[in-house]
């Protein structure tokens, strides 16, 4: 499927290029035909097929949950396994007919049936106690389908199941779940070596960010947010300073890896800094409003967090990284709102804090404007 609006933009550009004489009329037709063949626009049909597959998966899972007694239990498993083979055969049929978009729906249904069959075996033998192990097996099956069948839907399923798996483990043990890192690395490598589908890679990066942020809530008896903040700052710093080297090392074009990495680094760093200041389980800061949740002076941590956010916003504007800028804006707003609620009660002090902070940021804006004007003037001279 073509990137959103790509064909429309290309058609408009081609008209312009043909008028300017860059492209011959034959060339224009050939390009349009190539694009049409490569990105068949099937409209909403594949989307509906995938949604249908999701509904079918839930239907099968509920069938398993109902524990219907009119059919022998082993026959129920047989039906599910037969359905699994039929789903993958359908996927193969669509692939053989060069219809990968519909094969996606069939593959997703196959992955769903595999999960339902795992649940059924658990029910059949009254297996208790370890739902995480079942989810891990399911995730393995989804990753297998994603890798071998180049399936985006199975990729999304595998990443989502990895999130479910680590959440179950975290809830069960309340300790860092280190095995997740191995599974995450395998999922990332699998995608990097096969599809390199951007949304899938983003989802995988989000999964790691989620795990890192959750780490702060289980390390050191729930006060490990410093580690999270340091990891996030390290990722942010490395991707900003060593961006070109990272991208070259991984064999992609400039910024393909380092730019998103910087945005995820900022997200993780801010989540850690935010929790250090405001997520209080020990009751420290309720006694003293100017003390952060981890016992450090709140003003110091808040100033540091705001400095990181402002610097990120600045770099984002300088290097044309809108994602980084917008995340910094969002983080800035959250930080300010949290500070407001924390310091509520000492209104005069709060007012003073906001007045000083606002003055500083406005001064920064003026400075940035002045620098921008100078750079533009220099650019005009040279």
């Amino acid at each position, binding site marked *: 499927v073509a990137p959103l609006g790509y064909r429309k933009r290309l058609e408009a550009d081609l008209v312009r290029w043909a008028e300017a004489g860059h492209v011959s009329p034959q060339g224009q037709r050939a390009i349009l035909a190539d694009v049409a063949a490569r990105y068949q626009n099937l409209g909403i049909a594949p989307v509906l097929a995938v949604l249908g597959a999701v509904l079918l998966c839930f239907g099968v899972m509920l069938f398993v*949950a*109902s*524990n*219907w*007694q009119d059919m*022998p*239990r*082993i026959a129920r*498993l047989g039906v599910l*396994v037969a359905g*699994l*083979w039929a789903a*993958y*055969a359908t*996927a*193969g049929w669509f*692939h*053989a007919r*060069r219809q*990968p*978009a519909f*094969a*996606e729906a069939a593959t997703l249904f*196959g992955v769903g049936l*595999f999960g339902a*069959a*795992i649940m059924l*075996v658990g*029910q*059949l*033998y*009254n*297996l*208790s*106690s*370890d739902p995480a192990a079942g989810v891990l*097996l399911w995730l*393995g*099956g989804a990753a*297998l*389908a994603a890798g*071998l*069948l*180049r399936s*985006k839907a199975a990729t999304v399923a595998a990443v989502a199941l990895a999130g479910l798996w680590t959440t179950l483990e975290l809830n*069960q*043990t*309340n*300790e860092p779940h280190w095995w997740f890192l191995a599974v995450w690395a395998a999922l990332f490598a699998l995608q990097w070596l096969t*599809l*390199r*589908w*951007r949304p899938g*890679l983003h989802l995988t990066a989000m999964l790691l960010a989620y795990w890192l942020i959750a780490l702060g809530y289980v390390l050191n008896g729930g006060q490990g947010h410093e580690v999270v903040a340091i990891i996030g700052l390290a990722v942010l710093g490395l991707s900003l300073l060593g961006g070109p080297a990272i991208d070259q090392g991984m064999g*992609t*074009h400039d910024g*393909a890896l380092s730019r998103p990495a910087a945005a995820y680094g900022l997200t993780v760093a801010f989540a850690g800094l935010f929790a250090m200041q405001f997520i209080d389980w020990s009751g420290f800061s309720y006694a003293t409003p100017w003390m952060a949740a981890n016992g450090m002076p709140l003003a110091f941590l808040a100033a540091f967090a705001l400095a990181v956010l402002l610097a990120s916003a600045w770099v984002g504007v300088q290097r044309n990284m809108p994602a980084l800028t917008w995340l910094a804006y969002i983080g800035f707003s959250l930080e300010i709102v949290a500070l407001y609620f924390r310091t509520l009660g000492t209104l005069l002090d709060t007012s003073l804090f906001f007045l000083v902070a606002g003055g500083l940021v406005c001064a920064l804006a003026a400075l940035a404007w002045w620098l921008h004007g100078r750079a533009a003037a220099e650019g005009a001279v040279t």
Partner: protein
Amino acid sequence: MSRMTGMLRRPWALVAVVAALQTAALGWMVFDRNRILSSGTEVVLPVIPVDPRSLFQGDYVRLGYTINQVQQSADARVTRTPVYVVLSKGADGTWGPVGEPSVQWPKAVPQGALVLAGTQQWSQATFGIETFFVPEGKGPELEKLIGDKKLSAAVRVDASGRAALAGLLVDGQPAYREPWY
């Protein structure tokens, strides 16, 4: 960054590999359970109420045993650790624990006794036999039997101490026992 996707060179072979491996994984799960159920030694454990307020959750009944409650040893941290319980047959035909649970495989196992392997977290030990799945709406019936202390569980234990729930007994008589395959 996105590569040309979806076009597979040997789609039939690939989907067959995916389906076969997933089927094999399911088959292994079934085989593993049946190995314990068919070759394991059968023990009968009395079922005790777990939570008098809400025993029934969704489509399964939680089964509690005396061996679930263990002393929190010094080694039992927040993480799950292995725990081993020695079981022997009592006069009434049901089995019960001998001595204290240990974190290592017991060195001396009395004649006629066997070892059950489980996982401990805090003072709670689990052995993988704590849930019994029931058809929709059949839960309260079993709950009542557990409340009346009439229920016991037939459990098969293999040589490595792994357990599988084979069925339930009401007043010592087999009930709720279905063929394994």
